[in-house]
């Protein structure tokens, strides 16, 4: 039975192999060309193979040498931070800057465990007003402040 001795190395290796294989698969019909006239597939294919080989070596090391464990993670920060970014992307062209900043700021605030409703609400509202003043009026970027503006 094989035992993973260094989870960090092992999984990093797996990740590199996945990326390499994915790139090989996506790039399998880019013309390789010849050494003199390198096609669009020359470098991607070469690099992908190197990546796969390096990945294999790293996996091997992860199985043979003792190493660091993967530091434990918590899902809460990731989910709320990601939700904040994604909401920003989805809303910005639909409802304008102020409501977008308010919503994504409010959601993102919950990534922290120390959050409280009142504070997050005030923070999001303040950020919404400030960002309109800063980005639209002072820096003149072309975004609508809110959906009802002409």
């Amino acid at each position, binding site marked *: 039975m094989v035992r993973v001795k260094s989870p*960090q*190395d092992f*999984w*990093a290796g797996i*990740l*590199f192999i996945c*990326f390499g294989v994915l*790139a090989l698969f*996506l*790039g399998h019909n*880019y*013309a390789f060309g*010849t050494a*003199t*006239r*390198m096609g*669009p597939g020359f*470098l*991607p294919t070469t*690099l992908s193979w190197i*990546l796969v080989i*390096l990945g294999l*070596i*790293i996996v091997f090391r992860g199985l043979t040498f003792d190493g660091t464990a*993967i*530091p434990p*993670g*918590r899902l*809460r*920060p990731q989910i709320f*931070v*990601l939700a*904040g*970014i*994604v909401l*920003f*992307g*989805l809303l*910005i*062209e639909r409802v304008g*800057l102020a409501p977008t*900043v308010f919503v*994504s*700021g409010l959601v*993102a*605030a919950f*990534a*922290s465990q*120390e*959050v409280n409703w009142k*504070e997050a609400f005030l*923070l*999001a509202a303040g*950020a919404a007003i400030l*960002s309109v003043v800063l*980005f639209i009026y002072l*820096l*003149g*970027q072309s*975004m609508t402040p809110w959906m009802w503006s002409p």
Partner: protein
Amino acid sequence: MDVFANLATGFGAAVTPANLLFCLIGCLLGTLVGVLPGIGPIATIAMLLPITFGLDPLSSLIMLAGIYYGAQYGGSTTAILVNLPGETSSVITCIDGYQMARRGRAGAALTIAALGSFFAGCVGTIVIAAFAPVLAGFAEKFRSPEYFSLMLFGLVAAVVLANGSVIKAVAMVILGLLFGLVGTDTQAGVTRFTFGVSELYDGIDFVPLAMGLFGFAEMMGNLEKKLEDRSSTQKIDSLWPTREEAKLAVPAVLRGTLIGSFLGILPGGGAVLSSFASYTLEKKISRSKAMFGKGAVEGVAGPESANNAGAQTSFIPLLTLGIPSTPVMAIMVGAMMIQGIAPGTALLTEKPTLFWGMIASMWVGNLMLVIINLPLIGLWVALLKVPYRLLFPCILILCCVGAYSISSSTFLVLLMAGISVLGYVFNKLGCECAPFLLGFVLGPLMEENLRRSMVLSFGSPTIFVERPISLVLLFMSLALILLIVLPSFRKTREDAFQE
């Protein structure tokens, strides 16, 4: 003197009231964001980059220079006051800077860092002014094979300087190169790895990539940890170093500047290397070695000056060869490209005003930093006391607006979300993002030069060893690789990153 005549042209172009204002705003914003815990210079510059889009090329570069120095200084401030290094090069500052702060000498440490950096910045500027034209003349001999070998050397250096496992750093460089190839292959007119998404035809945009890898990945990591109590921030009594402290600091600053100016020119993380080298030197020649790690003045003065001198002279490979040698320089290339400026040999001959104006602006940026930041230290300290739960939503919004405003594209915002997950995973798996970023920037350049070399040599790879400059560069890369393999160096390297 030619150098001074050229510098005069530069100052004439750079020192206008409007430009000074932009530089001031840049410095202030750079420090403001750079001082926030968990945000290093790379994320700071990437975040503030969109602000400069609307300006004319020279003003925008001047503002960027301001942001860059501000961000660096902000990083040193957090390193000294709360023991949080924003980037690898201020790891060293943490060691003795934070100890000085704990002894109640935070003000002195900050002043020494600021004045040392200013002095180093002045020297660095003169070095650039004196050597850039010489190197640019030399660079005219460079053809594709030389460029390729030089970039290879830069990547090897980035791997050697990455902390942690070497082989993982190599894999990260390769992965970065692959990411850099996403988009249209201009020579064959084929799109690669785009999944049919038209926003990817021009490649992955640099800004969301950098913010995802360095901004958000860090943010998620920070939110997981129980952040230490911020009330531990040290109080600042007096800003001025005592006579004894000054006596120790001055020679250290001089030595640091010398080391930094020289090492910064080498591609591949000059600033990091210089602060490590300076710290080692100071420790070696100091008469009170026991003080190191317990708040030695030289341990702050030397590395901080070396760091800044290195940061300054690392502009040389960028301005003369068009090759970014550090991730920060990579962002500068991105910014210059957006302004329609192609950094490289042609810049000096075709746009001398811009070239010298930029060099002059570096000096102005350094000066501005000392003038505005010493009186404002109190403000930055106050900012450090703002709890993280209030800061990070603001950082998130800044990054989102920044990514969106590059090309008014929601795709970039969503891409940034995806990349931050990737960055988080990399961090968890102990994979360094800096080599990845350098590979990403150099990917397309390397492919182009490799192709051209191969056309030149009719497909024979021996062209890289037949040309003398290229051969020397390859030898240097090989020497670096041998260095890591050698056990004695390996040990020093591990020690250096242990501290």
